[in-house]
């Protein structure tokens, strides 16, 4: 059965490694919902979180094919029930006085932060689960959203591997 998997890859931080990963995923026809990458606490090691759609066989192939890349150190299919996942979003809104109270309430309620205000515009940030970020976007729908960006998921398994 097709469902979403969150795959994390630890990789050697070598030039071209992002290209290797994305080439592999596109060539094998793996469907990517989101991909994030960044450094870890260990020098020279980066970590990808990739959200993919697929059945168990597809995900097993993703795991094995990724593991074959020389610069990939570990591959893990996160068990969603035993993992923490977060997304991050930045949203720019058109701002006027009558909306301000309600927007502030949403920011407070969802643990957001006001990053900038001025020239009739607001920039706010939110982080949380995908469901929570979805909810924030729905709540803000009635205001005039000028720009928005959300990262893909980043995630980590609870407990030892």
């Amino acid at each position, binding site marked *: 059965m097709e469902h979403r998997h969150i795959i994390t890859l630890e*990789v*050697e931080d070598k*030039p*071209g490694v992002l*290209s*290797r990963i994305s*080439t*592999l995923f596109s*060539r094998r026809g793996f469907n990517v919902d989101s991909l994030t990458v960044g450094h870890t606490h260990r020098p020279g090691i980066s970590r990808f979180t990739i959200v993919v759609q697929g059945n168990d*066989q597809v995900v*097993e*192939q993703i795991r*094995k*094919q990724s*593991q*074959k*890349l*020389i*610069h*990939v*150190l570990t591959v893990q299919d996160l068990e969603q029930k035993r993992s923490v996942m977060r997304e991050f979003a930045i949203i720019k809104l058109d701002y006027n006085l009558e909306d301000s109270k309600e927007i502030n309430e949403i920011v407070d309620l969802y643990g957001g932060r006001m990053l900038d205000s001025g020239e009739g515009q607001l920039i706010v940030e939110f982080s949380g689960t995908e469901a929570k970020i979805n909810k924030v976007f729905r709540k803000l729908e009635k205001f005039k959203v000028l720009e928005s960006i959300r990262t893909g998921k980043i995630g980590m398994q609870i407990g030892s591997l």
Partner: protein
Amino acid sequence: MGSAKNLELTGAQALVKVLEEKGVTHIFGYPGGANLPIFDALRQSRQIQFVLARHEQGAAHMAEGFARIKNRPGVVLATSGPGATNLVTGLADALLDSIPLVALTGQIPREFIGTDAFQEVDCLNITMPVTKHNELVHEEAQLVPALEAAFYIADTGRKGPVLVDIPKDVLTNSYPHQFGLPLVLPGYNPTVIGNVGQVKKALKALNKAARPVVLVGGGVVSAGAVPELLEFVRKLKLPVVRTLMGTGVIPVEDPLYIGLVGTHGNQAANRLVQKDADVIFAIGTKLGNRATMRTQLFSRNATLIHLDIDPAEISKVIPAQIPIVGSIKETLRDMLRRIQEKPIRQNQIPWIIGKKSSHLLATQDQAEVLELVIKALSAIDRPLHVSTDVGRHQMWANHYCTNPKHLPLLTSGGLGTMGFGLPAAIGAWFAQPDRSAVNLTGDGSFMMNMQEFAVAVEYQIPLVVCVFNDGRLSMIRELQNAQYGKRHIAHDLGPRIDYMGFAKAMGGTGYRVLHEDNIGPMLLKALNGGRPCIIDFDLEKIAHSGHLHAVANQ
């Protein structure tokens, strides 16, 4: 690897030193602006012979032929830009057939990378999906480690091509290069021996099986595990079927041998893996679509045991009930030890034996001539390098190249590269020059890389190119007959080419065969000549002409 030492050398000199330390004796390639420093350094090497191909694709296939015979990485050298792009087909071919190659490309100087400079392409990204691994050398210090790693990666685990792209200024700058440092490849741990539990499970399943069959692929050959495989199947009296790349693993006369599976295989072999068998032990095969045909039918009644060195091949297309990841040679040895200690299938009568069936090849359009020529070749009982190209003749060769002295059959199985055969035969000869080489080819395939005949002439290679000349792409015609209601297009090669004349123009010898009685004698004559030649087999004339007629141009 010796102890680390540190020498002030140019990058090109350091590169040649690494190649010499790796035991490289031949490089196939082509010069250009960006790789000329390597050539300058190669002039100083007494160990390495450079073979100038006439096209980089040809050089890559030569390196493949060389690697298949030597069972160690072939080395190919090309320049930046078009040199690199011309390599792509050869790299893909080596990747799909798991042939160890080290490909070296010159790149434009670092300061110009990314500026669309003359002869610049993004070699790293172009070759990424057609190599096992590749690297662009960004710093002088990375050059030697990248080269040393390339040889290691190409030749271990599931073998394959590794490319190192080297900017020209890295090649010309002097630098205190360090040699023999320990390789740092934390993400690369090729598996060696199959998991004990899985091995035991496999033996148990084979022991209990009523109708087991072993399916062998090219992995058995590249692992050098043919003796172990034969001992194993003979001890347990298991019938054997094979894929195209598994040619010659078991002699065709062996009563255990049933045939080739797949689209161009044997009925009996396909019936086994699709219907009759209750346990299939697949060894060193990716179970590609050419072998399994309809995947929903393959192994539907059977328990599949799948042994491969590459974990990603297991359950990729066909789910395996008993996966075993490991070196085929080591794992079969382990299995042999276990059945030595605790025999299995002792009182089993072989459930199928000596059952051969005809092949599934289309017999139209003078195909019988292919059979005659290939059988005549196999009857020549002396060691030969034999290569094929791609098309109808490849399938006939796969069934009828049965002489063990002509193995391995050099053929492009995975990629199906027309134009592979001639340069592969040349590369094989450089690997082992004490035997003559034969390239079986169609006129379509031959024209894809016919320029490499000049290399055979230059080195006076005892090479016989057998061109099956029918003036058309006969496998295309065959497919259009079978699948497109005989609506023919683009299979006609137009005005007939005089291959005898071509051979002569290139400085070789040309022969033409027009009658079937002359096939065997002409092959012998050409082989005994010991020089590069082309035999033009006129399929139509041979099939229809009633009188013996052969001419040679000498």
